[in-house]
């Protein structure tokens, strides 16, 4: 199938190096300590953070750092077929783990010993790149909850179809079966914290594709930072002195 036309347009009209439209909103869940909605095109994800709070299961309490937990789920209405999504299937367990590890790596857990941080992410609309959107939403929600972090962590995917590196695959491109590289990136520290790939790629091409995803992460980081700063300013001036 032709995913990039010879004119250099993708199926949805983007060029290979372009991301979908991104939009973020902080504070979607009032009851949570921190929450955010993150959209990448038609992919829409909501994240809620509870904590740091008392550890629910005492036996899991860690004496020198916080316990980070994450639960990923997909809303039944998130895909076209409205299938009942069983909870805790292999895929969501895996993505939960991926998100937890990514977020844990950037939270300064040692500052909150004997406490627990819960991250709940739910996909409201799935159109490829849910994993990345979840990480971005979780970052925003954690920042909203005032949890100290080493750096922002942002994520973006890229792929390689029709011999072209493509940024931010949507569902159609994702299901083409080509390589799908998801990168989690710390923009300030300039470090990659997450790197996943389905399928195979020669190493030299892989480096290009990964670099593209990193560029995507940087762009998202800039956007997220703007959103957070704006949010902070708003809170501050509304509160008054």
């Amino acid at each position, binding site marked *: 199938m032709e995913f990039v036309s010879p004119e250099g347009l993708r199926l949805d009209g983007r060029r290979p190096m372009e991301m979908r439209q991104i939009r973020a909103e902080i504070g979607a869940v009032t009851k949570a300590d921190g929450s955010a909605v993150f959209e990448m095109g038609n992919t829409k994800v909501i994240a809620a953070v509870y904590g740091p709070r*008392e550890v629910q299961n005492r036996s899991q309490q860690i004496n020198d750092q916080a316990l980070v937990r994450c639960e990923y789920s997909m809303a039944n209405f998130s895909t076209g077929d409205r299938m009942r999504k069983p909870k805790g299937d292999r895929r969501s367990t895996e993505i939960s783990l991926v998100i937890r590890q990514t977020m844990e790596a950037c939270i300064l857990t040692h500052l909150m010993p004997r406490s627990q941080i819960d991250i709940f992410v739910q996909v409201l609309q799935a159109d490829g790149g849910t994993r990345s959107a979840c990480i971005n939403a979780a970052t925003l929600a954690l920042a*909203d909850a005032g949890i100290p972090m080493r750096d922002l962590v942002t994520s973006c995917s890229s792929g390689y179809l029709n011999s072209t590196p493509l940024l931010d695959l949507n569902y159609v491109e994702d299901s083409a079966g080509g390589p799908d590289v998801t990168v989690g990136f710390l923009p300030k520290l300039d470090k990659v914290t997450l790197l996943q790939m389905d399928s195979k790629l020669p190493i030299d091409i892989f480096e290009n594709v990964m670099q593209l995803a990193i560029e995507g992460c940087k762009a998202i980081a800039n956007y997220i*930072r703007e959103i957070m700063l704006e949010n902070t300013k708003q809170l501050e001036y509304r509160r008054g002195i």
Partner: protein
Amino acid sequence: MREIELSLNQTQKIRLKRALEKLESSSSKANSNSNASVSISDSIPVNHEDGVLKGHGTLDLNGELVATLCGVVERVNKLVYVRALRARYKPEVGDIVVGRVSEVAQKRWRLDIHYSQDAVLMLSSMNLPDGIQRRRTALDELNMRSIFEENDVICAEVRGIQHDGLHLQARSQKYGKLERGQLLTVPPYLVRRRKQHFHHLEQYGVDLILGCNGFIWVGEHVEAKDDMVEDQVSKPEQQKSNKNSISLEEQEQTYTPIETRQNICRIANAVRVLSILGFNITIEVIMDTMNLSSSLNLDIHEMLGSEFCVLVAEGEAERRSLTKRKG
């Protein structure tokens, strides 16, 4: 950015926007240079030659001071720290907090005070109902539940952080169990530390406790809390026996007049509105909001409507610009 979650019509939207803009301009005029907002991983400009003490919310990254929180940079002498806004409660010794009992444990209660852990209230840091200073006996331990049970709301003071967590104390008549009222939770940053956190609003017959942890208590004014506690202690058997069928006498005793209840609700709603708008919650602002609502002859439930919200926002904007001009 955080949206205020209200269903507004077009004009209300514009009015709210205008009011918020006004607030923004007045606040930015007030503190244009002293404290700047930062978000995570933004670097904080510091003069290293003066020597810098890095405080909360900062991290040293290759000689660069970097924020780990979203918030406002505060500088106190050499100390540079980031004051987070929306975060859990950060206790300081002497803070007056309101909490809810989450667990009754060995010689202690555990209280949820919106901190990263549950706070501990030792039986020993608690004035006994009989008011006598003595060693706590095993019997006292067995009777702990008669003092505070799970889910009771309690007012206490932060005693300090020990090895096993945050300790509270309630060694005064003004602390203790809170009854006949509402507990409101607001983000802790909206409650500032002040000299006075207990307010007795005589004209309404209402007690208002602004807990530093963002837990706000609005309840019927109680003069002699000890009596009540004593009451319960003295008649534990009776209470257990006829919990469901309360005697007439008791009913009268626990009866709160309808006006007081309405006042409680009104104050609670005023706090809610302020919390939605993200305004500082002080006794003055609460009273202003109260007065505004009663002057408009609004029903209690109408206070949570969008129109009142917009009015409060406009009033607050007006008030702040006035104080600004005066200052």
